[in-house]
């Protein structure tokens, strides 16, 4: 265990970034506020002091052009990492990401490559409201030529970031605000987490729960509650959303015959549609269902916000219904300390 230490998700991102910057001069980090005192939840803190301002710098509020700047720098052989405080801001970059980054290799028949990492924090908690709460991983899953990862553990955060930096394609790296404080054991060395491989976090036989980013933790907590009433839930963390490990999910589905997909986003044409569609096509006799954001923008006031997002109780209740048809059971209140303790003010 000498080679491991316990750190949190934010620290793991920092470490992966730091080590890869040390390893490769072509890697640089930019984004609004990356070089300020907070350093994007600590993930880029003081990197400019260590590697120089050239390699960790702030920028004008110009998300669209700055995406193109990253792509252009990548064409020139650098490995830029563009950090976004909110994934909602990626809507300003869609043209560059989808029409340019995802296409340049193909249009040049392989002459160009775009080794470009776009880190985007997903919001929730503390009254973020309609414009600071969205997750658009499905938008990038939809488009060939771009990869998407959404690690949930510190181990995967570090390994996925390193793999993203080394990848020769544009990668959208999704990080949920409520995960930054998640702790776990992380190897000290440089390592890559392979894209396209998911993980079975909890093995089970009665039902498969599949999350995406933060909702994986909802699934884990739901599985614990379900265990108490004798339901054995298997929890899958896809880690990489594009490419996605369909095989792993299918295998689990064929075993449990019941799959509940819990997305950290809206349902329609989303991650949950994709997983369920794949199972509907490739497996048979499954009971399938899904949960995610309610079908509205995210409301600001806490009572409504709490109802808007999926939660572990809701996941457990739905899973129990799928397993037993039992509609009246409710688990004890499941506390989510990372949400309760988060007080903004941002």
């Amino acid at each position: 265990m000498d080679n491991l230490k316990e750190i949190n998700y934010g620290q793991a991102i920092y470490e992966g970034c730091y080590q890869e910057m040390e390893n490769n001069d072509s890697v640089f980090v930019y984004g609004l506020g990356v070089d300020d005192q907070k350093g994007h939840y600590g993930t880029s803190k003081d990197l400019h002091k260590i590697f120089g301002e050239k390699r960790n710098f702030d920028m004008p509020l110009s998300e669209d052009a700055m995406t193109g700047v990253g792509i252009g720098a990548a064409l020139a052989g650098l490995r830029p990492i563009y950090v976004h405080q909110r994934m909602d801001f990626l809507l300003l970059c869609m043209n560059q990401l989808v029409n340019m980054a995802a296409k340049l290799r193909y249009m040049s028949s392989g002459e160009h490559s775009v080794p470009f990492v776009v880190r985007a924090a997903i919001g929730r908690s503390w009254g973020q409201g309609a414009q600071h709460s969205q997750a658009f991983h499905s938008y990038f899953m939809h488009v060939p030529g771009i990869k998407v990862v959404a690690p949930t553990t510190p181990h995967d955060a570090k390994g996925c970031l390193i793999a993203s930096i080394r990848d020769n394609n544009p990668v959208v790296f999704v990080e949920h605000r409520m995960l930054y404080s998640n702790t776990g054991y992380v190897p000290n060395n440089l390592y890559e987490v392979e894209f396209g491989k998911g993980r079975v976090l909890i093995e089970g036989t009665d039902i498969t729960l599949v999350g995406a980013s933060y909702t994986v933790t909802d699934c884990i907590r739901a599985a614990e509650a379900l265990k108490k009433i004798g339901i054995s839930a298997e929890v899958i963390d896809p880690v990489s959303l594009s490419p996605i490990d369909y095989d792993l999910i299918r295998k689990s589905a064929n075993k449990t015959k019941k799959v509940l997909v819990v997305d950290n986003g809206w349902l329609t044409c989303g991650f949950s549609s994709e997983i369920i569609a794949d199972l509907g096509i490739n497996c048979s006799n499954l009971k399938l269902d899904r949960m995610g954001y309610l079908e509205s923008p995210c409301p600001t006031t806490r009572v409504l916000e709490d109802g808007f997002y999926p939660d572990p109780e809701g996941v457990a209740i739905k899973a129990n219904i799928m397993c037993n048809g039992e509609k009246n059971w409710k688990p004890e209140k499941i506390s989510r300390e990372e949400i309760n303790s988060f007080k903004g003010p941002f």
Partner: protein
Amino acid sequence: MKEFDIKKAYHLFYLIRRSEEKIIELYDTDKIKSPVHLSIGQEAIAVGVSLALDDNDIVFSNYRGHAHYLAREGNLNQMWAELYGKIDGSSRGKAGSMHLSDWSVNFMTTSAIVTSAIPEAVGYAFAQKYKNDKGIVICYHGDGAVDEGVYWESLNFASLHNLPILFVCENNKYAIYTHQSKRMLNDSISERANAFGVKASKVDGLTTKDFYNAAYKSLDEIKNGNGPMLIECLTTRWRDHVGPGEDRHIKFRSDDELDNAIKNDDLLRLESMLSEKEVKKINDEVDNKINEAIKYSEKSSFPDTSEITEEVYG
């Protein structure tokens, strides 16, 4: 030109200042569970501009919108209830601090995505012209907002169509902790606007009256069909970018910069122009109103979760 009303200016200024201070006071109780972007230090702009407006003028603002709303004599109870996330809030708690809007005082909309409501303001001005309506659109924004390309697209369209809109740039020199000089080579917002066909002037008097005068003159030009205008108003944010705190510990600006601004507080200047009695009367009235608003908000209920999926479609 209608005369600058010192009493009214003081009233509005004090109302904004005290409201923001109340938010600071209360924030620790976690009754306001959402980000707040305070206008303390920047009130003079909202007050000066608002005093120059007609009732039918229309305001677009951003997440730092409390001052703009209150200077427009928006409903204090509803604003507070909105901060509390209650059903008597102007948007039943769905908006919160960052998305205030209130049709009854032509306070249209505020976006938390920087620059995003600016083309809307231009579109509204387009509609005013289309419908031959009288009101001028006021579009408040920060110095950071001009970094975004859509800002220039908006100005370009506004000047091309000679639209009745006044852009009010609150230049507090920072976007969060990033100084303007880290975002543009030269201090050239007004120059850029002029090149885009929007007549711009820089107002660095820092007093409410200066902003009033500048706004009044611009509005007059616009009324006479002389197209969109911009006033770039120099100012200083006293508190942290977001939340109730201060930000000296972050050391992104010198203490002097802040201290000078605080020393120049126009609230004190306005106060000094009124009698003690006048001041006391206004202060008492405002303090009362704020206390009432807080009581009102405390009493109001939270919305039922069934409301989550309401008002998505019209």
